[in-house]
């Protein structure tokens, strides 16, 4: 997703909770979160079924991050090699940042001088291969090393809720707390500003992550941000 907007454009009333194995009556093509058996389509994850644009999808409510090319993410360095960095992006496996995708002139073996263990970056997933291994890049758009603020981790499936319809939720959080926020599709969120403002923004995001499915959440967040 290049711009910030929630892709939950289907109406709330069409969302139905489905469990793994549930049969999905549909003429649409099979999308994500599903599997086929005997020519029929079944849900494979706990989630909300969504039949739109000719595709039958099940949007998982829980679960880890599956990298997709083009995703903007916040990554943390966990290991430095002579020509690469190994990065935690919250997926099943760590990702790789190759020196040629860093935008820096990195002498062989000198990687730690540019990015060391524990450092964080705003990056883009630029390659995912058939075996599931993936690479990220610092050379796209506004990708860069992050020097201040903090990182909050939340469930990637709740990221659309933090963004809100047309970005309404995240805009409200940013404005009310006077913070800069970068939302990684992987559920890693960077927040920068004054210490206590960061804490408020963090609290709001954690509340959304914990209560994403409950009613009246928007009002609760409004109350929290007014304080």
């Amino acid at each position, binding site marked *: 997703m290049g711009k910030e907007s929630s892709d939950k454009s289907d109406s709330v009333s069409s969302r139905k909770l489905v469990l793994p194995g549930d049969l999905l009556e549909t003429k649409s093509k099979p999308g994500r979160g599903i599997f086929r058996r005997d020519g029929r389509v079944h849900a494979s994850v706990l989630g909300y079924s969504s039949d739109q644009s000719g595709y039958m999808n099940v949007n998982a409510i829980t679960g880890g991050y599956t990298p997709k090319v083009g995703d903007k993410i916040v990554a*943390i360095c*966990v290991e430095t090699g002579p020509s690469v960095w190994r990065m*935690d992006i919250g997926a099943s496996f760590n990702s790789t940042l190759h020196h040629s995708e860093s935008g820096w002139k990195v002498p062989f073996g000198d990687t730690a001088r540019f990015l060391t263990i*524990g*450092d*964080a970056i705003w990056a883009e997933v630029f390659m995912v291969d058939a075996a599931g291994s993936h690479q990220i890049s610092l050379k796209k758009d506004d990708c860069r090393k*992050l*020097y*201040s*603020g*903090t*990182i909050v*981790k*939340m469930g990637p499936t709740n990221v659309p809720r933090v963004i809100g319809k047309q970005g309404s939720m995240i805009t409200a959080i940013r404005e009310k707390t006077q913070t800069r926020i970068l939302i990684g599709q992987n559920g890693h969120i*960077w927040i920068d500003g004054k*210490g*206590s403002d*960061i*804490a408020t923004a*963090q*609290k709001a995001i954690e509340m959304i992550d914990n209560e994403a499915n409950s009613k009246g959440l928007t009002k609760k967040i409004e109350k929290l941000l007014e304080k």
Partner: protein
Amino acid sequence: MSNDNVSNLMKGHMESLAKEGKRADGRGINEFRKVTIETGMLNTAEGSAMVHLGNTKVLCGIKMLIGTPYGDSPGSGTMMTSTELAPLADQSFDPGPPREQSIELSRVVDRGIRESRMIDFEGLCIEHGEKVWTVFIDLHILDNGGNLFDCCTLAAAAALSNAKIPNVQHGVADKDVDLPVTCWPISCTFGKLGDSVILDPTSDEEGVMSARFTVAHDENGNLRAAQKGMNGAFTDAEIREAVKTARASDNVLREALKGIQG
């Protein structure tokens, strides 16, 4: 969320918040998280308690079996503490033999209870020099949200407080009686975060702090056990201050414990 890979940014943010006396979850630096205690839920144990301290959840079961006394204390019962870091509590808890972490935890909790004479060991004698009760304190960590030390000590104290000696089942007497308890040790654990000292660290804070200090007091304000852990250091002043803070702050846990004694 368990934080195996902590960013340096988070460390810096938490350290600067702590300088202002604040924490990432909105607490003050000397504040405990919310604590709830439930007791007596296990039918197979002689005593049991479940303690939630923030997100940390520990279940404690007390089993009592007949054993032989130690040579140097023929009229006293015995006790043994063990801790299970259940793999479901933390992604880094691998199944397998007890690690150093689990052993340190068991021994610190054990000392807090043993050295405070919480259990009246003389009251556990069945036949002088021959038969005594052995109290097994088994702590089962179900969710590691940080500060296992205080949660475990509290769970053990709560479980012991509702434990009954199984006289009837073992043919020792015709009535089960309460396990004799004489005092209530409460532990407080601190972490060194940059230049600040914080009480009751969360697992995120444990990921960035450099040293840990646990101190247990009884209800009279006397120290019963202490342990400094991890490879950083506290200043002499910080230790003295922490001990004072512990006495001032542990009433929250003490009240919760009193609450379940009903």
